[in-house]
């Protein structure tokens, strides 16, 4: 119920359509770099979300989920940030469908603020899993679409939005539009970093599973070429595939790594008398105490990370097949430590993820060599192969090799170094991932994202006043 007369507007704060608003608070991404201040608004209904968009003021607003984007995608200095975690209802779980091939299929219709963690809690006991999960369960469905996230199964399943059948998007004019794949607004919103509108709800296809365990094969690769050969030869045999890579290893050991690949364990893979047999679909992720709120800088230096990497590599078996792991262990090892991002100290860290296409292996080798020669202390470097590109205009994945690493932001000269890597990535027709970015030069964007102009044109048409804005959009002039 919009209030138009001045007399009404005074009572609007207590009217049922106004969402709770905090005083200005400091907001940052998961990497904790470059915090800015915004008004946090927490809508609890679609009407409140619409009111929040209408009333967000001249510095605009941006939707935010659980704050797992590493950079400044979900912050909006001096404006509004819509905390979407208040819209967290699972509305419909439809398990009566069948897929094109006749296999059982299911969909879930849920609010954008529902986390993948919550979906797993509800869906796993029913025998269904989310189609795509990144390295953390603590992302919302809205965030998963906005960043068009990918997981260890991209080479088989593509990105998250490939499994979205429909979604409701609240656009700048206050209307809610229901869109599906192929619609311009859908494809601009998938990977659009929240800049086309606020995603309110989505219909997502699910994956049937027989157990909540993973059957995992582990093997070691002695160097980068060995790793790439192993991945190329055998990736297609696994639904999930990823390699942890030791970027501090130099010389002949450069690129030594541990491959973990697997699939959902079928019921008959569980040993006859195993405890898991009694509740094969139980979902019990363990959790350790949170990292303390103040940790000194420099815990993750070259020495400590080097030691960790050495142990991690040596600990991995040369080859092991069929090991049963919990979903949380296989997909989300870091979720076990809440606030793990604090170990980087006050100045935070940056995550660098890029992709270069197949055929550009020389560029990948060169970049890995540069990182390892420079000695970037990264203890979470991950290499994987992407499958087909996704339809989202600003979607990150494309067929090729993707490497992700995180580096303490206080490493001297890091900014200039990463700028140089950007040049190499762009020269190889690759791109960096916006959901993880906090430092890209705006000039690089057009080369990396060929549909940028379409995206800008659609935004100019649907949002001429620039209601949807974020620090990321200002920094990169998206």
């Amino acid at each position, binding site marked *: 119920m919009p209030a138009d007369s001045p007399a009404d507007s005074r009572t609007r704060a207590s009217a049922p359509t106004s969402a709770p608003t905090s005083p200005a608070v400091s907001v940052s991404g998961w990497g904790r770099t470059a915090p800015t201040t915004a008004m946090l608004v927490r809508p609890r209904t679609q009407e409140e979300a619409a009111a929040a968009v209408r009333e967000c003021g001249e510095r605009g607003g941006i939707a935010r989920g659980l704050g797992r984007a590493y950079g400044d995608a979900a912050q909006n200095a001096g404006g509004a940030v819509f905390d979407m975690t208040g819209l967290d209802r699972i509305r419909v779980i439809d398990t009566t469908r069948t897929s094109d091939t006749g296999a059982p299929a299911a969909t879930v219709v849920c609010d954008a603020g529902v986390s993948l963690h919550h979906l797993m809690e509800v869906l796993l006991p029913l025998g269904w899993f989310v189609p795509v999960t990144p390295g953390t369960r603590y992302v919302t469905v809205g965030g998963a679409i906005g960043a068009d996230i990918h997981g260890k199964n991209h080479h088989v399943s593509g990105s998250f939005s490939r499994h979205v059948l429909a979604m409701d998007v609240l656009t700048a004019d206050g209307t809610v539009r229901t869109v599906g794949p192929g619609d311009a607004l859908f494809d601009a919103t998938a990977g659009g970093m929240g800049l086309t509108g606020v995603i309110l709800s989505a219909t997502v296809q699910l994956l049937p599973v027989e157990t909540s365990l993973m059957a995992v094969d582990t093997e070691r690769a002695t160097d980068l070429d060995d790793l790439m050969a192993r991945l190329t030869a055998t990736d297609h045999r696994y639904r999930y595939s990823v390699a942890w890579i030791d970027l501090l290893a130099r010389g002949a050991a450069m690129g030594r790594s541990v491959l973990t690949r697997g699939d959902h364990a079928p019921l008959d893979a569980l040993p006859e008398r195993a405890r898991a047999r009694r509740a094969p679909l139980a979902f019990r992720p363990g959790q350790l105490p949170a990292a303390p709120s103040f940790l000194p800088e420099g815990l993750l230096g070259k020495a400590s990370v080097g030691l960790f990497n050495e142990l991690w590599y040596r600990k991995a078996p040369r080859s092991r097949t069929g090991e049963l792991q919990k979903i949380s262990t296989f997909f989300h090892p870091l979720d076990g430590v809440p606030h793990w991002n604090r170990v980087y100290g006050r100045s935070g860290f940056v995550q660098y993820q890029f992709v270069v296409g197949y055929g550009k292996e020389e560029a990948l080798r060169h970049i890995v060599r540069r990182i390892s020669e420079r000695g970037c202390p990264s203890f979470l470097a991950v290499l994987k192969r992407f499958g087909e590109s996704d339809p989202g205009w600003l979607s990150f994945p494309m067929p090729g090799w993707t490497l992700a690493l995180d580096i303490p932001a206080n490493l001297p000269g890091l900014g200039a170094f990463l700028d140089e890597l950007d040049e190499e990535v762009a020269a190889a027709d690759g791109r960096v991932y916006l959901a993880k970015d906090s430092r890209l*030069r705006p000039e690089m964007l057009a080369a990396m994202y060929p549909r940028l102009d379409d995206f800008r044109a659609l935004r100019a048409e649907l949002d001429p006043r620039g209601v949807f804005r974020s620090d990321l959009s200002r*920094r990169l002039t998206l």
Partner: protein
Amino acid sequence: MKDAFGTPQSLLVLGGTSEIGLATARRLVARRTRTVWLAGRPSPALEKAAAGLRDMGADVKTVAFDALDPESHEESLGKIFTEGDIDMVLLAFGVLGDQARDEDEPLAAVRVAQTNYTGAVSAGLVCARALQSQGHGSLVVLSSVAGERARRSNFIYGSSKAGLDAFAQGLGDALHGTGVHVMVVRPGFVRSKMTAGLEEAPMATTPDAVAAAIETGLRRRSETVWVPGALRLVMSALRHAPRPVFRRLPL
């Protein structure tokens, strides 16, 4: 917006012909800064400074600004912020004065105080308010070690910097939590046209070194930066030296 390393994309230099200000601008333009505002009294020197930065590829605009005319600050500085966000304001204007002459001419001494302190108070507050409504930005204030303890040889300049320093610290506390970061920079003796002809003090530094320290401070979100860093210890000792001893030190 600033990037993850605190490097601004847009910069406003108050005191657009300041050597430290320009050294900092050059350093930042070489990284991320694309828009630079140089605020100062209109002069060929100001235009030359702008041209130099333009040659590096920056989009540079100049704006008339007079520290001694605080009544104009609201308007002259306010309009800059209406044209877009400013990620960093560098308050770099100041005069050294001539201690011997200024002691004889109180009005000349007052001019030093008005430029370095009063002018900075009004310009600093105008910019701080604009930054606060943006919800982000850094205000970098060039103070001096001379403000840490007044010395016989330049206490007029030193006292003005002491006032500026205290003001900037308080402003930083007031803005804590607003997204605005205030950084006080305390260089020692800087070899520049301001100090040309003066006898060099120990641990002398250069405008480029100050600029480098500012860039590091931005990355670390520091509140206080000494240039060179060792001055922090030296000045801590000097500050606590008894006055009869301090008076006799050859400073």
